[in-house]
C-alpha cells in the first residue's frame, strides 16, 4: 500500500511540476466557458451592410434609418450599381445589401405595392440567414406600424415562453457540453497519452517488472487524472453558477455522482486507447480525431442531433458525451432526479464496463 | 606517443554551474594530437557536462576552451566541422535503415554525393554489415548500433571525436570489438576523447584524467597513475581518489 501511495504521488508530481499541464488542466475549462459564454453566440450586432437605393425618397430613407437604428447593423456602403454589389461582397466586408426599387414611394402610393430586395452573402450561410431574417422582421414591423396604424384585423398573437432559459443564454447548453469535452480531454486523452509515454520511453516495462502488479500501476496512473478531472468539473460548475448565474435546480450531490461516473467512463476509454497505441503521437491522434471532434460536433451541444442524417444519429448514439450532456442539463436546469435519467445513467455504466473489459483483454494478450 | 606533438584540445579554468551546483570546477588540461584521452569518473562527476561543452552543445560559465585551433565560444561552427560526437544515447534514427542513417549524416556535413557513396560502400565492407544495410536500426542489437553510431560520428573525417560513454550496456566482448574500432580511428590520426566509467577501458587509453565531484583529481598515463597512487590497477586508483 505504501508503495502504491508513493507511486500515485510520483504521478501527481509529474503533473504539477509542469506549468504547461496546469495550463491545459485549469486554463482550458475557464477559457472555454468564457468563450462560450461571451463570444460564441448566434446573436448579431454591428454587422456591416450596404444599401443600394435606386429611389432615394423619404420612405426608403426612413426604412434605412429603422434598420441602422436597430443596433444590429451598421451602414457601411452606399452602392450605385449591381456591379458594385458584387465587388463589395468580394471584399468580404459587408454581409448584406438592401436594394430599393426605383420610385419606391410613388409606387407604394399609386399602386399600393413596392418591393425591396434583400441580398445576403450566403458564403456564410448561417449568418446570412440570421441577418436576412432580422432585416425582414424590421421591415415588417415598419410596415405594420406605418401602414396599418389602426391595426390589422383578425390577429393571432403567438405568446412565446422559453422554458428554463427565458433569455436563451448560450451557456445553458455550453456548460454541459464543455464539461463533457473537458472531462473527455483530461481523463481520456491525458491518461492515454501518459500511459503511451511510459511505453514509448520504455519505463512501462520497468514498472511491469517491478513488484507492483499491473492493476495497481494502471490505477495509480489514473487516480491523479481522476482527481484533477473532478476538480475541473467543480470549477466549471462554479463558474457557470457564479459568473453566468446558471441555476442548479437538482440535487448537487447527485450531479457530482453522475460526473464521477462519466469520469470513470472516460478513464477506462483512455486506458483502452493506450493499449491500442504504442506512441504518444498515435494516442494523441486517436484521441483528437476519434474523441475531441466527435464530442464537439456529434454530441448535440453545438449542432442539434435531430437535424443530422440518420446515419450520424446512430453514430451519435455511441457518443458517451451525448448521454452525459442530457444528464447534466436535466439535473442542473430541469431539476430532474434519477427517475428521469436512469436510462442515460445505465448506458454510461454499460460503456464503462465495456471499455474496461476490452482493455483487460488487450492488456492480457500483450503480456502473453 | 610523441611527447612534442601539438595540443589539439586546450582547456583552461573551465567552470560550469547549474544554479549553486558546480558541475565543472576549474578544469584545466590539454589533449595532444592523435591521443586516446580517457575521461573517467563516477556517474554525476561532471563528465557529460564537460564533453557537452567541448563539443559545443552547452555554454561554459567561464574559462577558455580551444578545440583544433578554434575558440569554442567564437568559432563554434568551425569547431563543428572538425569534430564528431557520439552520445550515450547514440543518436541514430530507429526508423531509418543503416544506409539511410549514414547517408543522412554524411549529407548534413555537406559531403559530396559521390564521396558519401564510395565511403558508405567501404564502411559497410569494413563493418561486415553489407547484408544488413537495408534493415531498420530498431531491429539491430545494441552492440551493432554502437558500432554504426561510431562510424557515423567519424564519417566526415573529423580531427577529434568525442565519445560519451559509448559502450554502456553491452558485454565485454562487444566492448573489446568497439575498442578495436577506436584504435583504428586513432591510427588514422583521429584524436579520441572518451568518457567512461569502466575502469578496464581506462587501461586502453594513452592518458586518462579522473574526475570526482567536478574536479580533476588525477591526470597521467595509466601506468604513471598506478605508480602515483601505489595501486595494482585502475580500479584501485579510482577508489583511492573517490575516497
Amino acid at each position, binding site marked *: 500500500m505504501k508503495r502504491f501511495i508513493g507511486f500515485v504521488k510520483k504521478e501527481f508530481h509529474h503533473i504539477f511540476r509542469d506549468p504547461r*499541464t496546469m*495550463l491545459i488542466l485549469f486554463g*482550458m475549462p475557464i*477559457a472555454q466557458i468564457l*468563450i462560450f459564454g461571451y463570444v460564441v*453566440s448566434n446573436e*448579431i450586432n454591428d*454587422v456591416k451592410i450596404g444599401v443600394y437605393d435606386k429611389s432615394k425618397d423619404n420612405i426608403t430613407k426612413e426604412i434605412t434609418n429603422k434598420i441602422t437604428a436597430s443596433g444590429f447593423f451598421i451602414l457601411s456602403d452606399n452602392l450605385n450599381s449591381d456591379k458594385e454589389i458584387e465587388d463589395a461582397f*468580394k471584399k468580404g466586408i459587408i454581409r448584406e445589401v438592401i436594394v430599393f426599387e426605383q420610385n419606391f414611394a410613388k409606387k*407604394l402610393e399609386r399602386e*399600393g405595392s*413596392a*418591393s425591396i430586395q*434583400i441580398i445576403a452573402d*450566403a*458564403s*456564410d*450561410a448561417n449568418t*446570412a440567414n440570421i441577418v436576412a431574417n432580422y432585416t*425582414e422582421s424590421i421591415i415588417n414591423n*415598419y*410596415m405594420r406600424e406605418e401602414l396599418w396604424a389602426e391595426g*390589422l*384585423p383578425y390577429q*393571432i398573437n403567438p*405568446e412565446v415562453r422559453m*422554458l*428554463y432559459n427565458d433569455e436563451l443564454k*448560450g451557456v*445553458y*447548453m455550453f456548460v454541459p457540453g464543455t464539461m463533457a469535452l473537458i472531462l473527455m480531454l483530461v481523463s481520456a486523452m491525458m491518461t492515454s497519452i501518459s500511459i503511451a509515454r511510459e511505453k*514509448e520511453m520504455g519505463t512501462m516495462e520497468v514498472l511491469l517488472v517491478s513488484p507492483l502488479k499491473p492493476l495497481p500501476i494502471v490505477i495509480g496512473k489514473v487516480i491523479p487524472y481522476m482527481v484533477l478531472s473532478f476538480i475541473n468539473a467543480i470549477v466549471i460548475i462554479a463558474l457557470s453558477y457564479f459568473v453566468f448565474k446558471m441555476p442548479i435546480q437538482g440535487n448537487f450531490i447527485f450531479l457530482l455522482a453522475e460526473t464521477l461516473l462519466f469520469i470513470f467512463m472516460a478513464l477506462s476509454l483512455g486506458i483502452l486507447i493506450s493499449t491500442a*497505441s504504442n506512441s504518444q503521437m*498515435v494516442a494523441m491522434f486517436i484521441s483528437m*480525431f476519434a474523441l475531441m*471532434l466527435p464530442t464537439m*460536433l*456529434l454530441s448535440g*451541444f453545438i*449542432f*442539434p442531433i*435531430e*437535424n*443530422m442524417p440518420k446515419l450520424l444519429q446512430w*453514430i451519435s448514439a455511441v457518443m458517451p458525451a451525448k448521454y452525459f450532456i442530457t444528464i447534466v*442539463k436535466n439535473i442542473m436546469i*430541469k431539476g430532474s432526479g434519477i427517475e428521469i435519467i436512469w436510462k442515460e445513467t445505465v448506458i454510461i455504466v454499460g460503456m464503462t464496463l465495456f471499455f474496461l473489459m476490452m482493455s483487460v483483454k488487450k492488456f492480457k494478450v500483450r503480456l502473453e | 606517443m610523441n611527447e612534442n606533438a601539438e595540443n589539439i584540445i586546450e582547456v583552461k579554468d573551465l567552470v560550469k554551474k547549474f544554479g549553486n551546483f558546480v558541475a565543472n570546477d576549474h578544469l584545466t588540461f590539454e589533449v595532444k594530437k592523435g591521443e586516446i584521452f580517457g575521461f573517467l569518473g563516477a556517474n554525476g562527476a561532471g563528465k557529460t557536462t564537460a564533453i557537452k561543452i567541448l563539443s559545443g*552543445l*552547452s555554454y561554459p560559465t567561464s574559462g577558455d576552451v580551444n578545440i583544433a585551433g578554434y575558440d569554442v565560444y567564437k568559432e563554434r561552427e568551425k569547431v563543428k566541422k572538425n569534430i564528431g560526437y*557520439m552520445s550515450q*544515447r547514440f*543518436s541514430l*534514427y530507429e*526508423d*531509418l535503415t543503416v544506409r539511410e542513417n549514414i*547517408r*543522412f*549524416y554524411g*549529407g548534413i556535413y*555537406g559531403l559530396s554525393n559521390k564521396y558519401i557513396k564510395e565511403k558508405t560502400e567501404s564502411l559497410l565492407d569494413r563493418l561486415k554489415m553489407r547484408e544488413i544495410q537495408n534493415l531498420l536500426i530498431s531491429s539491430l542489437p545494441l552492440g551493432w548500433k554502437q558500432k554504426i553510431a561510431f562510424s557515423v560520428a567519424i564519417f566526415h573525417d573529423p580531427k577529434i571525436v568525442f565519445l560519451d560513454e559509448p559502450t554502456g550496456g553491452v558485454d565485454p566482448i562487444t566492448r573489446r570489438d568497439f575498442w578495436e574500432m577506436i584504435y583504428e580511428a586513432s591510427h588514422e590520426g583521429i584524436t579520441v576523447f572518451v568518457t567512461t566509467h569502466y575502469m578496464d577501458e581506462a587501461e586502453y587509453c594513452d592518458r586518462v584524467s579522473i574526475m570526482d565531484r567536478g574536479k580533476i583529481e588525477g591526470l597521467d598515463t595509466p601506468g604513471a597513475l598506478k605508480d602515483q597512487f601505489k595501486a595494482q590497477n585502475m580500479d584501485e586508483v579510482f577508489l583511492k581518489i573517490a575516497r
Partner: protein
Amino acid sequence: MKKLIKVKKIKYILQKEFTQIFRNRTMLPMIFGVPIIQLVILVHAATLEMKSIDMYIIDKDLSTMSHKLISKFAGSPFYNINGASFSLNEALETIEKNKTDVIIQIPYGFERDLIRENETNVQLLIDGINGTAASLINAYSSSVISDFNRNIIVDLTQMPSLKNLEPINVETMYWYNQELNYKIYMLPGILVILVTLISMFLTAMNIVREKEIGTIEQLNVTPIKKFEFIVGKLVPFMIIALFELAFGLAIGKIFFHIPIVGSLWLLFGFTIVYLLVVLGIGLFISTISSTQQQVMFIAFFFMLVFILMSGIFTATESMPLWAQKVNIINPFYYFMRVIRMILLKGSGFWDISYEFFSLLIYGTIMLSLAVWRYRKVS
C-alpha cells in the same frame, strides 16, 4: 565566409523526413485517412437546419379554426406531432424527458375571440436550454402561425390578395449559396481546421520527438545552420498540408459539389503563406517544450480557443471587442474568411490582400521567433 543556405543539406533533411513519414504505418492513415473521414462525417453534422421538431399539442378550443391550425403543423415536414392531451403538466413532463421541443397550447375561446374581438392568443412553450435550437424553433413556429394568420385574414376580409395586406414586398436572395446549403459553407471551414491541426501538430511534435530520443543532439554538433534545419523541417509538412487541402477539396467537389469559383492558384498561394504562420507556431511551440506531452497541451489549448473564435459558424464582427482583438493573432480567423471568399465568391488577390499581407508579416514573425528560440547550444 558566410555562405547562403546550402540547398543540398536541406535536401538531405527532406529526404530523411519523408522516409520517416512514409515508413510509419500508423501515422499515414492518421494523416490522410482519418481527417478525410472526419470531413465527410462532420460536414453532415454541422447543420442548423431544423428538420424535425417534436411538438406536443394542447387544444382546449377544439374548434374548426384550431383544427386548421394544428393540421398546418401536422402537414409540415418539419414538425412531428408526438402527443396531445388537455393537461399542461403531462406536456411539461415530456419536455423534461427531452421528448418534446415545443408545446403549442390553444386556449379555450380561441376561435370565438378571433371573430369577435379581432384578436386571439396561442401559446408556444419551447424548451429553451439549447438557445440556438430554441430560437430557430420559435422562428419556424411563429412563421407557420403568421402564414396561417394571413390566410385567415384574406379569407375573412375577402381581400383580393395578400398584396393589400403587405404592400412592401420583401424578396430575399442568398447569393453564392441560394439554398443556404450548410455543407457548402461548412466544408471549407472544417477543411481549414483539419489542415491546420495536422500540419501544426506534426511539426511541433516532430522536433520534440527528436529531442526526446536524443537525435537532436547529434544534429546540433554538426555544422548545420539553424535556418537550414528549420527550413528542412518546414517543407515536408507544408507539402503534406497542401496535399491534404487538395485531397479535401477534391472530396468536396466530387461528393458535396462545393463550388470553386475563384482561382485555385490564388487559394494555394494563400495557403502557403498561411502555413508559414501555422508551422511557425508549431516550430515555436516545439522549441519551448521538451516533451511531446507538453507540445500537445500547449497546442491543444490555443487551437481550441482559436477554433471557437474563428468564425466557423458565427459572425466574428458581432463578438465583443476584446474577442475581435484576440482574433488579430488567430490564424484560423484569416483563413476561414479567405477560403470561403475564394471558393464561394471568387474573390481576387486585391480582395484578400489585407489578409495576405497580415499573414505574411505574422508568419515572418513566428518563423523568426522559432529560429531565434531554437538553440543549438544550451
